[in-house]
């Protein structure tokens, strides 16, 4: 997955993501595609969660999955989840503990759903996402509704091991880009979507930032790859939310 938080030169914050899934779950030799990825794409739906007739939040789902991977609470905050693999804190122990009856940790999708339903502000969402014990590690990319809000929360099972704030980002404070590797370490050499993603963000520049250019970045190889199922574009202040099924035509990297 690749998630981007970017602010244009007028102070408008955009949040976007590619959701990549299906690696190693079967390869179609004839079509040169990942099987599960291809079967996931037709299940994608956008949901408006409503209460008393009012929209509480919007999200993109694989139908039948009730948790949240991509969502926007208009005027409040936006959230995307990127997967994180960590040998020292994988979900193995958490799942075993759950089965054995120790249930103080939360399944990722249910935590994010609770955040979208109950948190009323960027700060409250951040507190819930950093402070809740989980069954598996993850990256939470959280956008706010005002200038300089936005952070990437690197989670272990027990706690946030890093919160990367936009205000603290070194060379490019106007955007943050997160793939599936800790931002303070180099990405896996065979799966570097960070460098090309950063290259494209810097080439586009802050002045031209908006849905168009973020979509172009997320449609550039290898940010777009054969695991990409959809691209979502969000803007918290106006509540704009768009998502599009994505496919990557050859020549295209397999991840």
């Amino acid at each position, binding site marked *: 997955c690749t998630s981007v938080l970017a602010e244009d030169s007028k102070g408008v914050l955009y949040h976007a993501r590619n959701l990549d899934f299906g690696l190693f779950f079967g390869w179609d030799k004839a079509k040169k595609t990942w099987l599960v990825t291809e079967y996931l794409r037709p299940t994608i*739906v956008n949901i408006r*969660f409503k209460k008393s007739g009012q929209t509480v939040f919007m999200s993109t789902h694989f139908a039948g999955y009730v948790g949240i991977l991509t969502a926007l609470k208009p005027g409040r905050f936006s959230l995307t989840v990127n997967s994180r693999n960590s040998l020292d804190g994988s979900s193995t122990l958490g799942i075993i503990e759950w089965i054995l009856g120790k249930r103080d940790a939360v*399944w990722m999708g249910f935590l994010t759903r609770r955040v979208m339903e109950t948190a009323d502000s960027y700060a409250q969402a951040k507190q819930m996402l950093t402070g809740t014990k989980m069954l598996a590690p993850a990256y939470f990319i959280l956008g706010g509704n005002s200038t300089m809000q936005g952070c990437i929360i690197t989670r272990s099972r027990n706690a946030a091991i890093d919160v990367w704030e936009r205000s603290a980002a070194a060379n490019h404070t106007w955007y943050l880009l997160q793939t599936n590797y800790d931002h303070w370490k180099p990405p896996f050499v065979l799966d570097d979507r960070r460098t090309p993603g950063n290259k494209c963000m810097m080439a586009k520049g802050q002045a031209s930032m908006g849905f168009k250019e973020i979509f172009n970045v997320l449609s550039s190889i290898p940010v777009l790859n054969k695991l990409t199922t959809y691209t979502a574009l969000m803007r918290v202040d106006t509540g704009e939310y768009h998502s599009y099924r994505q496919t990557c035509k050859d*020549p295209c990297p397999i991840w």
Partner: protein
Amino acid sequence: AFVPAQFTQECRSDTYPPPSSSEVEWFDVSLDEAPIIRWRHVVARRQSQIRDLLLQFKNFIRQLTGSSVYFNLVARSLTLIAPTVPQPYQDEMVGISTVTGIPLGEILLYNIFYEATNL
């Protein structure tokens, strides 16, 4: 098919707006409705796609292990722990299972796929 990351294309500038055929369909889900029925209209429209997806995953596990036993064992075991899933998600999954006819254990597996694949 593999193109190493270092052989990237140029940054694209011609992909927006994407074709309308790629736009994702919208549904409303009312949190005022009982959890067991609030997803019914969504999953009813996508039940064959959900079924195909889980069947594909089941086939993958069968090819990997040489048997359907493992997948069925996991799905049956998950049915037993379904009552431990917090509400309202537990009832939502029961409702999805009822509408689609897909066993509850498989729906639960789908919903904890993040943790399962991380494992």
